[in-house]
C-alpha cells in the first residue's frame, strides 16, 4: 500500500462537495473516455457527442450537492450522459416523422441468418483501433432503442432494473430490446468474422 493509491469515487465526490478544486477534475479524467463512448454510440454524431461530454460533466458538477450516493457516481454520470445524448438525437430527428416504436417494429423479432463459427479470435486478428472501429460502426447501425439498452446493459454493465429506470422503460421492454440488440450485433459481427468457406444457411 502506498500513498499514491487512487482515491475512491466516493471520497472524490465528498472532497469536491467540500470545495476541493482537484477532486472533480480527477473524476473527469477517470471517466471522460467512457462518457464520450456512450455519447458517440448513442448520438452517432461527432459534434453532438463532444457537446454531450461537456454538458454531462457540467451538469454533474452543478448538481453534485444533490447527488446522495444512493447509486454509484459513475451510474449517475452515465444516466446524465444518456439523457443528454437522447435529447441531442431527438432534436436532430425532430424533422422526421418516425417514431421510436415504429423503428423497432421490425416484424421478425429474432431472425437468425448467419450460423457460422468465428475465424479465430478477432482480438488477435485485428489491432485495437481496427476492432474498435468495427464495433462502433456495428453498434451505430442498430436502431436507437436497441443501442441505448445494449450500451447500458452490456457495455456499462447496468442491471436490468437500472437500465429500465434510466430509459423509462418496463423490464420486459428492456429484456426484449436487449435480446434483439444482442442477436443483431451477433449477426452483423458473424458476417465479418466467420470462418471462410463455412456454409451459412437459413435457420428456423
Amino acid at each position, binding site marked *: 500500500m502506498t500513498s499514491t493509491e487512487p482515491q475512491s469515487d466516493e471520497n472524490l465526490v465528498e472532497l469536491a462537495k467540500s*470545495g476541493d*478544486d482537484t477532486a*472533480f*477534475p480527477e473524476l*473527469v479524467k477517470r471517466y*471522460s*473516455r*467512457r462518457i*464520450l*463512448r456512450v455519447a458517440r454510440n448513442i448520438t452517432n454524431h461527432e459534434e453532438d457527442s*463532444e457537446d454531450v*461530454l*461537456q454538458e454531462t*460533466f*457540467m451538469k454533474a*458538477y*452543478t448538481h453534485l450537492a444533490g447527488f446522495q450516493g444512493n447509486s454509484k457516481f459513475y451510474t449517475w454520470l452515465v444516466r446524465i450522459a444518456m439523457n443528454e445524448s437522447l435529447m441531442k438525437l431527438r432534436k436532430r430527428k425532430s424533422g422526421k416523422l418516425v417514431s421510436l416504436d415504429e423503428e423497432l417494429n421490425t416484424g421478425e423479432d*429474432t431472425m*437468425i441468418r448467419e*450460423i*457460422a*463459427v*468465428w475465424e479465430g479470435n*478477432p*482480438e488477435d486478428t485485428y489491432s*485495437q483501433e481496427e*476492432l*474498435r472501429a468495427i*464495433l462502433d460502426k456495428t*453498434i451505430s447501425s442498430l436502431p436507437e432503442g436497441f443501442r441505448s439498452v*445494449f450500451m447500458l446493459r*452490456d*457495455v456499462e*454493465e447496468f442491471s*436490468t432494473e437500472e437500465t429500465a429506470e434510466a430509459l423509462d422503460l418496463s423490464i420486459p421492454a428492456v*429484456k426484449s430490446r*436487449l*435480446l434483439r440488440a*444482442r*442477436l443483431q*450485433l*451477433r449477426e452483423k*459481427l*458473424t458476417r465479418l468474422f466467420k470462418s471462410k468457406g463455412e456454409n451459412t444457411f437459413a*435457420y*428456423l
Partner: protein
Amino acid sequence: MPTCKDFLRELSDYLDSALDPATKKELDKHVQECPDCWVVLDTTQKTLKIYKGCEPQAVPAALEDKLMAALKVKMAEKKLSG
C-alpha cells in the same frame, strides 16, 4: 423439450444466468444436442465479450483541454456565488 425457437427466446436470460434451474437444465441439454444453437450461443457470447473488452478511445487532447477550461470557469463561478 425446448425447441430452437424456445432456446432463442430465452437466450438473454440464459447468458445472464437469470433462468430457473429446471429451464436452464433443459436448455443446456438442447444446446449440447443442437449444433446450430450451440453456434448461436457461442457467437453471441463472443459478441458480448468483445464489446465488454474493448477499451474506449482516448479523449482528444483539444477536447479534454476545452472540457477542463469550462470546468475551471464553472468552479470559479460556484466559489463566487458562495
